[in-house]
């Protein structure tokens, strides 16, 4: 999203309160969605729940193409369409809902840095495993990604997506990495997060922020998604405080709502 568009959106958004009819769009949960999209979508859902903003989740097979940025998820609020966690945080802030207002500048910078770490490490690792690991791509990613389409379009779209992600991996220098190196990166990232979290309930003590939502979205999805190997989940399980962190957010924001 361009800066001008972003400014415009926030201005427009500020005028109206959060409507009851807000919806979040993501691909089909059972047959289609992939680990990385599921993680991003869960992060946004966690964030909105932390803000206390109700949102209805809608599953659409063409969610990726409906999204203005081509990324999952996006929310439809009033007549606004906003995609991805970053812009959605901006958008809710303009409506007067923010989780990071209590932080000082240093903390805010730190929060942004950790969010970048998660996006650059965990999200990229998820994409790598989905599309660059041949076994996962053939057994899980391509069949799931192409499930809404009929042959031969299904094959065309799945390979097109795989090619696109591999090209991106090559561009950021991940193309040469082995699976083992990617797992090591994930371990390092988790250790960094684990150290930062320490014994606090949330990253910035008592109050959850968008960083908590993002970390929860990724870790929880990795822990609960079945892949060709359990290696990725094992790496996270070695940090016990992250596990209890996931459990805590799940209980606070997801379980009481559903019961």
């Amino acid at each position, binding site marked *: 999203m361009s800066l001008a*568009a972003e400014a415009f959106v926030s201005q427009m958004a500020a005028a109206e309160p959060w409507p009851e009819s807000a919806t979040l769009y993501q691909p089909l949960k059972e047959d289609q969605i992939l680990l990385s999209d599921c993680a991003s979508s869960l992060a946004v859902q966690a964030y909105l729940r932390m803000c206390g903003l109700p949102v209805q989740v809608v599953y*659409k*097979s*063409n969610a*990726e*193409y*409906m999204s*203005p940025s081509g990324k999952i998820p996006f929310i*439809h609020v009033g*007549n606004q*369409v906003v995609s991805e966690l970053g812009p959605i945080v901006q958008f809710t802030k303009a409506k007067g809902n923010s989780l990071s207002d209590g932080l000082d500048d240093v903390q805010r910078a730190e929060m942004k840095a950790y969010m970048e770490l998660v996006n650059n490490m965990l999200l990229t690792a998820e994409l790598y495993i989905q599309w660059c690991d041949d076994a996962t791509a053939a057994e899980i990613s391509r069949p799931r990604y192409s499930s809404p*389409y*009929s*042959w*031969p*379009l299904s094959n*065309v*779209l799945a390979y097109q997506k795989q090619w696109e992600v591999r090209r991106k991996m090559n561009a950021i220098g991940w193309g040469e990495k082995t699976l083992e190196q990617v797992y090591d990166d994930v371990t390092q990232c988790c250790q960094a997060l684990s150290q930062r979290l320490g014994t606090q309930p949330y990253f910035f003590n008592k109050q959850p922020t968008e960083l908590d939502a993002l970390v929860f979205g990724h870790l929880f999805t990795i822990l609960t998604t079945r892949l060709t190997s359990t290696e990725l989940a094992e790496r996270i399980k070695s940090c016990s405080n992250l596990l209890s962190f996931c459990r805590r957010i799940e209980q606070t924001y997801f379980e009481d709502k559903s019961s």
Partner: protein
Amino acid sequence: MGTVHAKSLDPLPMHGRDLGVHPDDLVELPEPEQESKQEILENKAVVVQHVNVQGLGRTKEDLLGYEISEVFHAKNLIDVMKKSHIARQKLLRLGIFKEVEVLIDTSEGSDALPNGLDVTFEVTEVKRLTGSYNTMVGNNEGSMVLGLKLPNVFGRAEKLTFQFSYGTKETSYGLSFFKPQPGNFERNLILNLYKVTGQFPWSSLKETDRGASAEFNFPLGVTNHTLKWEGVWRELGCLARSASFAVREESGHSLKSALSHTVSIDSRNSAIFPSRGALLRINQELAGYTGGDASFLKEDFELQLNKRLFWDSVLSASLWGGMLCPIGGQPSSIADRFYLGGPTSVRGFGMYSIGPQSEGDYLGGEAYWAGGLHLYTPLPFRPGKGGFGDLFRTHFFLNAGNLCNLNYGEGPRAHLQKMAECLRWSYGAGIVLRLGNIARLELNYCVPMGVQSGDRICDGVQFGAGIRFL
């Protein structure tokens, strides 16, 4: 050398360059010293002994056999002339010769009969490869178009064409192969491979189609038929961020595999400014039966009747209609539905701006009808008569139509009622300009009536061009 008497040619309807063979080119006037050999062949039986085709390069001779065989059946000279003329027209229609000249001569050689004739077609083949290069500007986009044509590529009037357009926003291409049946040019097969991109601002929609199609055309009595299979990978997207959510919901990829059949009867004397005759075209498309994501049955028809009145004025009436029935409970796609309105359909309304819409984006409808009544007259005071002025007509028109979605649970009576209510209509007058024999430009003053909420109107002067017109 024997000569043929020129007198015999007079009764033939030979004028204009249609024939290409002027009597004077063919026949040398008898010279005095040859008078002894002069014969009057007009009513005499003749035998066509040889038909030669000269100037053939890559064209296969068996193809030409079908086109010129009739000449052998001619029994007298006038017949020979007529049949040669027809054969020449047939040869030119193949599109593989630049020029065809006919020479008729008395037979020579040892086996020559006294009343034997030889017919020689002197042909010039078109070049093996022709290319074109254009630049186009429009739709906020500039593009460069390269075209390549290989006529007569395998020697039997096949044609291979390739067009590639490289634009600042989009590239598109098309590869087409045309193969007629030898001796029956109207019966032909066309294979296509293409990628096209369209931007539809009235729907805030962008569509990229990549597809392949196979088409078989054949005449049957007075009707022309087309059977077609088409497989298209369609990618829909929003033209702008501000597109309505209804259009956004249609975004994404789909695969359409459709069988279609078109039948047409056309007795009009001209496609653009007909003064008599009628056209009926019925088209039906069944998608989903041969695979793909889209499944529907689509029917539409077009009827046009023309009648000449006093002082070269023509009364023309047309009726269009169509219906789309989704199959299997799946809603129809925005790319398959019908659209109505614009300077060559229901005039006085914006381009495709009638019917169901969402936040100003027109979504199309599953059923429509439109009718038009026109009175065409030549320009007042007939300036440029017989020349430039004949490219123009003035017309007075009355258009009406409706576009809506039907609930297929209701009966046909409810459908008819729905099509009759919320009728859009308009009247006006304007000038029409014929562009070649395929398109026309119109400049009209329109008075839209029966406007429904949500329709975009064009009250006053409206300008537009179109190939298909109501």
